[in-house]
């Protein structure tokens, strides 16, 4: 099985998780980690992944994935306007906002 071969090669990768791997994952996660955190997480994530890899021993050929237990049918409602959060309430928790204009504020992303 091609899938299984791929899994076994990854088992090797996970137990040898490098600091560069941790930095890559941290960047994807939008987390700026300290050097201490990077080394701690490298060890802990490698341990957890090595443990989790036992699922790869199970033959799941032809088994569909469960993303959701599908407890109810999908629900729709009439396409009608209903009351929603007023702008001032939505902005009330914002660390920085232009409340008169009704906008959240972030650092400049376009131009200099």
């Amino acid at each position: 099985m091609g899938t299984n071969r791929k899994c076994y090669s990854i088992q090797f990768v996970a137990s040898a998780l490098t600091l560069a791997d941790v930095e890559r994952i941290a960047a994807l996660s939008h987390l700026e980690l300290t050097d201490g955190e990077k080394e701690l997480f490298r060890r802990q994530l490698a341990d957890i992944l090595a443990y989790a890899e036992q699922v790869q021993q199970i033959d799941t050929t032809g088994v569909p994935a469960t993303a959701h237990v599908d407890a109810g049918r999908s629900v729709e409602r009439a396409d009608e306007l209903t009351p929603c959060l007023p702008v001032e309430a939505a902005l009330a928790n914002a660390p920085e906002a232009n409340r008169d204009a009704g906008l959240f504020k972030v650092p400049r992303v376009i131009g200099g």
Partner: protein
Amino acid sequence: MTAAQSARDLREQIVSGSTSAAEVCREHLARIEQANPKLNAFNTITRDRALERAAAIDRRRAAGDALGPLAGVPIALKDNMCVNGVRTTASSRILDTFVPPYDATVVRKLEAADAIIVGKTNCDEFAMGSSNENSAYGPVLNPWALDRTPGGSSGGSAAAVAARLTPLALGSDTGGSIRQPASLTGVVGLKPTYGRVSRYGLIALASSLDQIGPFARTVGDAALALSILAGPDSMDSTAAHEPVRDYMAALTGDVKGIRIGVPRAFIEAGVHEAVLRAFNAALDVLRDRGAEILDVALPHARYAVPVYYLVMTAEASSNLARYDGVRYGHRAAGAETLQLLYSRTRDEGFGPEAKRRIMLGTYVLSAGYYDAYYLKAQQVRTLLRRDYAQAFEQVDVVAMPTSPTAAFRLGEKTSDPLQMYLADIFTVSANLTGAPGISIPCGFTADVGAEAPGTTAPRLPIGLQLIGRMFDEGTLLKVGDAYQRATDWHTQAPA
């Protein structure tokens, strides 16, 4: 004193006029304010709001108005459920100052039933943990032994009910976060079927697993709470339209002919001796009352923890992407670019367990690893659901201990996240399959053998877990209620 009474008794006394909602509220607030410096069970106590609402109930009673099914009953909410105008933190620094602009559906329903919300309880950060030690506000202590954890993540709600601070509390259960702390503190904890209770206004951890449910001291009170909480919701498309059954009608005490399946091989692989003895004794009680005890096989149950930690972290990494310092919560100072604003805000705002799970989830979803981890875990999740479906062809209920051990010491597992994750071995299956589960007090460690010879072991509660068919909370409540009629564990209170 009204503080040790059940929700049902309190409501009756308030409606009959033998006490007032204001008096009940004052007594419970006094107990909370006295106990909280020791237990750290509450993040926020809503004293003024609660007293105002209690007085309003008394005025309505005086005017001859009908009162709701929880009239004047004090209730505590885990601090991951939004209450309009009341600080809601999920025990995270990143939400330290968050004040929701709307009510969760469970809040709306409880207050429509005239319950009185007395505060928001401490929990693991974003409900991530099995010991409450991941809270940004410090751990909750177990009322039975102050050097022990109350379990997690809904540890504050469990401790509040165990210490008789409130008769009812709500928690959320993603991998055992209602049932495990219920077990470790000696109270009833019910995780309803996935979709049975709306999650609108619940701060999300893992959306295919999260469910809200009640803590109580009696199964009857849990049934009453579920009657109020259950049902569809136009604000939550995952809230099921399945008809809500009459849970109070299930409380007959009669379990004759109910078939209880026990996955012996799975249980005995990793459970403490005292827990196993209390569990077996509980099965004897149910057998004596007419239930039939059968063996069932759940061959994939031993993979439930790894599957859970792959699926849950993947979903958590996605749900926690919203905390970016823009719309609410903490924001790092002085970040010059949007990228730095995000990454510094999140590094400062999240605690170590939240970071660990975000990283793990991001990793298992990332290109090249998705098939081997996330997809594989979802396939094994299907095999686990099939195991349970087969078991439920032979039996009505599956019984297991709730937790492999009684309450462990604070600090015992904090340095090794994997050991902490294994505390969830018996609870995660119900979340992965969607099935309802309940934990019911079934004894104490010291009654069934001390932990080790020559030590003075504290007397710690043990929980019996029952798992049922989808939407069959009624049978769990029936069996649990019958068990409580035959035993008095639930009437015992910590010193």
